[in-house]
């Protein structure tokens, strides 16, 4: 069964909850309209479609747009090598969606990382602690409104942070410049 057929089968099962499969460079993505339904969709994908490997869960901060968060599940069926992606949106007020840990146990650390970096919570997760930063760090550093240099924080006896000197940076490389001078890393602010 190809990725497209898999996606169509999921759509046939869940109807309007699932968008039409979108294809980009041979990869299939479907969107789930209601993030609360992620668990039954994933359960169906694993049990009926054979997607027995959760490659990754990633998250996107659509800063300035609504809904703010997009959570992306990358699924793979090891038996035949088929991969699909399931995207779902979560609004900022809620910032919570069900954990898929009952389906794939590897979701445990993926979801902890998203909680650590983006601050999206996963209901039903048995151990939703930070995984990279320390307990008590007050920010979510991969959010778009978090400065690249970081913010000061202090947790006595555990850790502290200070803003990093950027010396006018960030230094950004632009791909596809016509010569080495236009391609080399230079101070480029996002608004320019």
């Amino acid at each position, binding site marked *: 069964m190809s990725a497209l057929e898999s996606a169509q089968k999921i759509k046939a099962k869940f109807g309007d909850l699932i968008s039409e499969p979108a294809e980009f460079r041979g990869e299939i993505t479907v969107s789930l309209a209601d993030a609360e339904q992620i668990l039954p969709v994933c359960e169906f994908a694993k049990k009926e479609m054979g997607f027995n490997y959760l490659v990754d869960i990633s998250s996107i901060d659509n800063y300035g747009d609504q809904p703010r968060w997009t959570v992306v599940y990358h699924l793979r069926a090891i038996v035949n090598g088929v991969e699909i992606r399931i995207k779902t949106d979560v609004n900022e007020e809620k910032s919570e969606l069900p954990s898929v840990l009952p389906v794939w146990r590897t979701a445990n650390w993926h979801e902890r990382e998203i909680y650590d970096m983006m601050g999206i919570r996963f209901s039903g997760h048995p151990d939703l602690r930070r995984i990279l930063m320390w307990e008590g760090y007050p920010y979510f550093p991969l959010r778009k409104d978090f400065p690249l240099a970081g913010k000061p924080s202090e947790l006595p*006896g555990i850790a*502290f942070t200070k803003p*990093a000197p*950027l010396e006018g940076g*960030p230094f950004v490389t632009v791909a596809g410049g016509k010569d080495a001078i236009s391609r080399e890393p230079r101070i480029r602010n996002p608004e320019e």
Partner: protein
Amino acid sequence: MRTETEIGYNSKIEGDVVVTRVDAALNWFRKNSVWPMPMGLACCAIELMAVGASRFDISRFGSEVMRFSPRQADCMIVAGTVTYKMAMCVKRIYDQMPEPKWVIAMGACASTGGMYRSYAVLQGVDNIIPVDIYISGCPPRPEAVLDALMKLQAKIGTQPILENLTAVKALQNH
């Protein structure tokens, strides 16, 4: 061994005796047996392993005895990126080392934070512990580490020991 040369001292008169200052002798012992505490935190630690291995062979300088307990170490070689999460651990390990102790910051990350101008990385280990020698490079060549060790030895060789002793201080006050 009795020697007939007269370079340095006259063996006919003095026998097997070398005249030196006490702190020069003590420093000579110290600088040729600097036991490193390998604080390997990132890729620089791989180069540090190369320094210890046979091609570069840090034991030529008396520093082959890598101590994984800070209580037996003289010189902490901070090899790699010091994250804020690790910073207090590095400081705590440094505090456990007995005096006298020295620190080598190996590579760009340990010296300044390197390419990580980031929320997660301490911008130079000298923010938390005193550093004696900085090594540039990303990562530094093993020769650079050996050069740093030789510079550290030169520094140790000039450090006054005796005037810090309590008995000597009491004498000077008399």
